[in-house]
């Protein structure tokens, strides 16, 4: 609760709202004690006195009544009406909602049907009908406004109650022989009460507006008694000649409602966990770059990642997802990147084309040279023109990565037209060819399917076809087969492998599966806690791993027909990337770790031909030399 108030206090606008409402409510409460003129005494000779006249700071109205006094008393009445309506609506609506939600079944069905009917009315219309039946008047307007808001509470509270009614503690109470009424009062009500209060705080502004509205129409408070709405309604006749009589009550309604809305927004934000975690920030078109150090020089490789650092900055914390990665891939080559979840392999891949969600992602160091030009910090225009055309991505889980509301054909056509001026029919023909090239049967018909109409394997083929749309030089495949079953996985891998041979594609293949790496990749890089710990030709690394982490990782892979070989999970967890240890990040999980491992930074050093290892005491050295 204290944390909640702290959060609320941090939201300056909500605090402002709270202060405004506090002042208005306080003034309304002490109004009878203030030395104000009688609000209802008419004094026609002094009608329409302008503001700041002597004896009437805000002037007088069409009957010569003191506006300040009427404003104060009117505010008091309007606030009271609004709060009363909110309380009545909340009490009745919550009672209905709790009964419907708790008893469920036919009771629930019947009640909620009725609530749906009430909600089928345009809002104010129902209030008008009620006032029409009961007759104009303050109390009747109050009843009308409360009544039309009952369904809102009933529906919300029912939803919450349904969730609670099936919780264990309610079952326990029932088994203990408590009656339904007791359970509702002692078990259910305390749990829904906070929701009721929040719902009230967000609707009280509406209630004040609506009661004022009915009074404005002459259907609420009757003369001489005035609330803010009827003051405004009476002033309307003199709007053009004496606008101050309208502005005074109107501005007051605006101030009150705005204060309540500010406060309500603050409460809502304070309670929304997504806002706290920053989950509601939108990623920008390209990852932010904040690079102060000198940029590494270009090399002759097709794609060269040099000393890349990418971090996530979340509320004062820095998560170093990628902590200085060097990688390169040549034309026609397949490079595997392997590691556990959270090792930074995906972020490395996404950094290449500036696709890391930003905020919170920031690239702080290094370079990515493609064809000799640095992509980090390149203007968005250049980056966009390379994306999909020269460097294309295939993502995991194509159900989430394909747009759910566009036909797959339209998504393919869009990929083509993003970089080429092609007519739609021509692009469509090419799209069909693409689908055929990834062995989608019946491509002419499948092109008009929506993603949800396809199987996982078919969807991933569409994902690959989309990556191939513009004949890229490099494909970055981020766990493209992880969500698929083994047979489909094998098919997808063979499609990729053929394409690579036929088109001379360079592939960066990210996975956590050594089996897949062995099948497809020429070279492999093993990542741990944001850095590469071992790199080398696939066969060499698989048969004679040098970094203890690599060998432990290989030991985790079950092999078919491997018999009784012991599968050993790696004990412990990877370190959090916002609190990396000084020395080797794997030291705490390594059974060969010595003091030297924890002393300081360990470099990635060349050990054999084409092999590098980040370990002071590498394994299998003799065997590799032999």
């Amino acid at each position, binding site marked *: 609760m204290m944390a909640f108030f702290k959060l609320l206090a941090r939201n300056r606008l909500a605090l402002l709202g709270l202060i405004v409402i506090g002042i208005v409510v306080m003034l309304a409460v002490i109004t009878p004690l203030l030395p104000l003129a009688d609000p209802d005494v008419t004094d026609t000779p002094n009608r329409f006195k302008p503001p700041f006249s002597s004896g009437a700071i805000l002037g007088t109205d069409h009957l010569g009544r003191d506006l300040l006094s009427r404003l104060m008393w009117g505010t008091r009445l309007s606030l009271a009406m609004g709060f009363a309506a909110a309380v009545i609506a909340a009490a009745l609506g919550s009672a209905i909602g709790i009964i419907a939600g708790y008893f469920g079944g036919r009771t629930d069905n019947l009640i909620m049907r*009725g609530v749906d*009917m*009430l909600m*089928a*009315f345009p*809002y*104010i219309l129902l209030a*008008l009908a*009620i*006032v*029409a*039946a*009961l*007759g*104009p008047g303050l109390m009747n307007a109050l009843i009308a406004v409360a009544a039309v808001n009952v369904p809102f509470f009933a529906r919300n509270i029912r939803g919450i109650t349904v969730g609670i009614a099936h919780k264990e503690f309610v079952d326990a109470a029932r088994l203990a022989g408590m009656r339904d009424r007791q359970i509702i009062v002692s078990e259910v009500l305390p749990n829904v009460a906070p929701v009721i209060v929040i719902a009230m705080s967000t609707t009280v*502004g509406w209630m004040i507006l609506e009661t*004022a*509205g009915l009074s*404005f*129409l*002459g*259907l609420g408070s009757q003369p001489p008694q005035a609330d803010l709405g009827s003051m*405004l309604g009476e002033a*309307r006749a003199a*709007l053009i000649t004496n606008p101050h009589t*309208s*502005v005074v009550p*109107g501005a007051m*309604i*605006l101030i009150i*409602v705005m204060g309540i809305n*500010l406060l309500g927004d603050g409460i809502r934000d304070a309670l929304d966990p997504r806002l706290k975690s920053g989950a*509601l*920030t*939108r*990623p920008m*078109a390209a990852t932010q770059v904040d690079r102060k150090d000198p940029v590494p020089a270009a090399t002759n490789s097709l794609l060269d990642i040099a000393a890349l650092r990418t971090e996530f900055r979340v509320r004062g914390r820095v998560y170093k997802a990628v902590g200085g990665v060097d990688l390169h891939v040549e034309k026609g080559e397949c490079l595997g990147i392997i590691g556990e979840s959270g090792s930074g392999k995906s972020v490395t891949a996404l950094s290449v*084309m500036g*696709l890391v*969600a930003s905020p919170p992602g920031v690239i702080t160091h290094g370079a990515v040279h493609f064809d000799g030009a640095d992509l980090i910090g390149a203007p968005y225009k250049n980056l*966009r*023109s*390379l*994306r*999909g055309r020269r460097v*294309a991505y295939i*993502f995991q*889980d194509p159900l*989430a*990565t*394909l*747009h*759910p*509301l566009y036909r797959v054909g339209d998504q393919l056509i*869009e*990929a083509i037209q*993003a970089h080429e001026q092609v007519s739609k029919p021509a692009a469509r023909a090419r799209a069909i060819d693409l689908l055929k090239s990834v062995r989608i049967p019946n491509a002419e018909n499948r092109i008009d399917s*929506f993603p*949800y109409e396809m199987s996982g394997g078919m969807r991933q083929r569409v994902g690959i076809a*989309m990556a191939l749309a513009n004949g890229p030089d490099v494909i970055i495949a981020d766990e493209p087969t992880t969500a698929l079953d083994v047979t489909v996985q094998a098919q997808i891998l063979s499609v990729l492998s053929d394409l690579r041979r036929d088109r001379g594609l360079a592939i960066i293949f990210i996975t956590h599966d050594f089996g897949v790496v062995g099948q497809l990749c020429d070279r492999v890089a093993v990542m741990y806690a944001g850095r590469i710990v071992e790199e080398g030709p696939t066969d060499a690394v698989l048969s004679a791993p040098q970094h203890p982490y690599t060998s432990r990782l290989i030991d985790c892979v079950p092999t078919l027909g491997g018999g009784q070989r012991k599968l050993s999970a790696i004990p412990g967890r990877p370190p959090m990337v916002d609190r990396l240890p000084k020395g080797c990040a794997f030291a705490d999980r390594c059974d060969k770790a010595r003091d030297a491992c924890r002393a300081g930074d360990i470099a990635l050093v060349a050990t054999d031909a084409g092999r590098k290892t980040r370990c002071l005491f590498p394994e299998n050295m003799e065997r590799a030399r032999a």
Partner: protein
Amino acid sequence: MTGYILKRLVSAVPVLLGISVIVFLIMALIPGDPATAILGSYATPENVEKLNRDLGLDQGLVARYFIWLGNMLQGDFGRSFALNRPVIDEVLDRFGATLILAGTSFVLCSILGIAAGVVSAARQYGFADKAITFVVLLGISIPSFFLGMMMILIFAVELRWFPVSGMWPIYGDRNFLVLLDHLAMPALALAVVATGVVARLARSAMLEVLRQDFIRTARAKGVRERRVIWRHALRAAMVSIIPVLGIQAGFVLSGAVYIEMVFQWPGVGRMLVDAILKRDILLVQGGVVFIAACYVMFNILVDVAQALLDPRIKT
């Protein structure tokens, strides 16, 4: 799709019946003898007897409901005693004006609200976002009737850009431009609150969608950012925006009451308020049922639009 539309039309029948029951029950709250209440100052013994005969007012509640429902189904909504003409004629005469006003407001709030929400989300925490957020907060906090009065004061009286009130000039031509001139202020005043609500929802719906994986895919394809926002993201966000547009349609339709009072607009809303003040019960009853029925029908259109937009809704 035809099947879906038919299904929705059929499902509207119980809702329409429910609405008629609710309106009937509300009117049954009127204290005292119903015939006397309905007739008010016209309650001569002959009139009371005639009304009792026509509407079965001396019978039980259930019988009365079915007589009333039967009459309505034949297009007979009763007779306004204050205006001395059939209710349905008066309502239909007035409904056009309300439809023009509310329809324009609905289009305004949809376009402005969505545009503001999208821009706000795309420039999250930027200047445009902050400015829009502030204007939206102001918009949803200001009572539409007060806003209308202030607009009259500023734009009609001071600046003389628009006529003070009414739908048509007392003398002179009645053409489209003249109508537009009269419509501008009331339609805008009515749209402001709804625009704010739509803008807020659109912003949060867009923020939700922009984090989705398929947006990253679109960017990875090299789709232009403008297209990513206005096509990919907005299309997906519309799925949650459209139901809110349906609610806002009801809001502008009934909120027109205030605006029609402020701007002397000859619509159903003003007719209802006058009828309530004159205790012209049958006119209120007929008017409310008619508008509510129109709103139910409009919501079917909204559902159909939703189904067209989202193929995952099974037809």
